[in-house]
């Protein structure tokens, strides 16, 4: 028996909708992307703990970084993108808190990113300043412990 070999043409794949698909992906990533506003200007190694909660970022948040940098005395604290001394931090927090009502102050999230080597006196001073200005909603940012 002889098979008739039919030469079949493979169907063309339409590429006309390719740009549309790519654009869709593009818009997805554009909306999802959060450009990192500020990052630490010093090396900070976060401590690891067993219990932690996912952090929801807000537009009104403030990040305070404390590093264990032992060489440069004044470059230990950073708020958002500014390196500050304890005295300047006091002024900045005062400026943040003074126009707010008490219940509004409790809604300003402060994220503390503190290096694990830092000694508690420095953390205590920062916390005392926050309490003094009524900015009491804080969050200790940690790493999740991997077992």
């Amino acid at each position, binding site marked *: 028996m002889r098979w008739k070999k039919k030469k079949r043409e493979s169907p063309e794949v339409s590429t006309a909708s390719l740009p549309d698909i790519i654009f869709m*992906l593009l818009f997805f990533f554009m909306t999802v992307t959060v450009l990192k506003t500020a990052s630490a200007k010093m090396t900070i190694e976060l401590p690891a703990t067993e219990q932690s909660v996912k952090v929801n970022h807000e537009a009104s948040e403030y990040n305070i970084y404390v590093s264990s940098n032992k060489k440069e005395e004044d470059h230990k604290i950073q708020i958002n993108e500014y390196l500050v001394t304890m005295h300047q931090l006091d002024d900045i927090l005062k400026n943040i808190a003074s126009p707010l009502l008490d219940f509004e102050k409790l809604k300003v999230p402060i994220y503390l990113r503190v290096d694990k080597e830092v000694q508690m006196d420095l953390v205590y001073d920062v916390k005392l300043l926050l309490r003094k200005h009524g900015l009491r909603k804080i969050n200790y940012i*940690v790493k999740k412990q991997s077992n």
Partner: protein
Amino acid sequence: MRKRRKMPELNAGSMADIAFLLLIFFLVVTTIAEDKGIPVILPEYYEGEPGPMAARNVLKILINGNDDVLVESILTEKDEIKDIVIDFVTNPNLDETKPLQTNKAIISIQNDVHTSYETYVQIYSNIHEAYAFLRNSMAHEIFQKEYAQLPVSEKNTVLEKYPLKLSEADPFLNATTTDL
């Protein structure tokens, strides 16, 4: 008179390439890594001494400059704190040194100025873990749900029974480790 000109045809063939380029840019820039944290509301600022607390309601945790942990004057490992807190708050054997009601319990932490932040945060997280466990088990018992899934009113019922009362004393200066 105006001549009718033909619009030049736009070449859309490179559109996909442009979109690809943008896509790859956003892919690279996107950071999906999320932060983990321990949310805390700091106590109000006041000057002067805190009010008196009944001794049986307070669980005293001390951390020294070498990151040793003392719970009620007994040297303790960090991992044991969770069980100690649970036992203290629930007081299953009706101990005289533990609170009668769970909502009376106060956890007091005092640290040295030389205590490392890591130890402090780990102890903090252990206490939170203990309370998360207690709240969750109560939520399961009464509402047959995870604590996180409860509506606000039911959450408050649980919170009334297990409010986390933390007292943080000012750090003490450890004379033996101060090097000035």
